[in-house]
């Protein structure tokens, strides 16, 4: 897992990962790249990350991947990422095509739901929390008083 200040150098990162998985004799290598789209008159997106819990989250996925004979990789940006630049790369390598295809989907979807990362729109230099696009983490609501479980 790799964290970077500002936009990711997608070419350098994915080329380096490709060489690593080639040497490890994996047969299938999938990368998922997130690119900042021009929409809602934003200049950039911006990200806060809580690294200790992100690292635990990632390590438990690495264990899961290992149990399937695969491995996962991830890079994410901290701070501002302008339009047409990238904030996120996830990757899976596996001897088997089907394992890799299933794992990249599960890994990316769980990332969106549970990785401790907060997203902001940057408009006129101001950071605005992307509340509507954010998801309560697994375990959220534990402080609700009306909860009956």
């Amino acid at each position, binding site marked *: 897992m790799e964290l970077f200040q500002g936009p990711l150098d997608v070419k350098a990162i994915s080329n380096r990962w490709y060489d690593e998985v080639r040497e490890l004799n994996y047969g299938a290598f999938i990368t998922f790249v997130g690119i900042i789209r021009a929409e809602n008159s934003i200049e950039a997106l911006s990200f806060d990350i809580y690294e200790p819990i992100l690292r635990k989250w990632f390590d438990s996925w690495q264990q899961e991947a290992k149990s399937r004979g695969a491995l996962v990789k991830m890079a994410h940006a901290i701070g501002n990422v302008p339009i047409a630049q990238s904030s996120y790369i996830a990757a899976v390598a596996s001897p088997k095509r089907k394992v890799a295809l299933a794992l990249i989907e599960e890994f990316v979807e769980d990332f969106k739901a549970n990785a401790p990362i907060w997203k902001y729109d940057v408009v006129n230099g101001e950071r605005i929390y992307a509340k509507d696009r954010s998801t309560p983490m697994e375990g959220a609501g*534990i402080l609700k008083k009306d909860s009956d479980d």
Partner: protein
Amino acid sequence: MVKVEFLGPIGKDPVELNINTLEELADYMLKSDELKEWAENSAVAVNNTIVQDHNFQLKSGDVVTILPPVCGG
């Protein structure tokens, strides 16, 4: 004493509280205009492990982290 940290968009400095239960933590947040909404939708970690058990007991020196709704990628 328990240290409570508020992450991401909550934008509040850490506080030291003399509490032993999650219910006391909830009471603290719910009586603050600034923190009320975050009590509803945040997850809670103690010493960087997410807590799933309502009856979890806090002890002195614990670091509690309040994690609001996320959106990576």
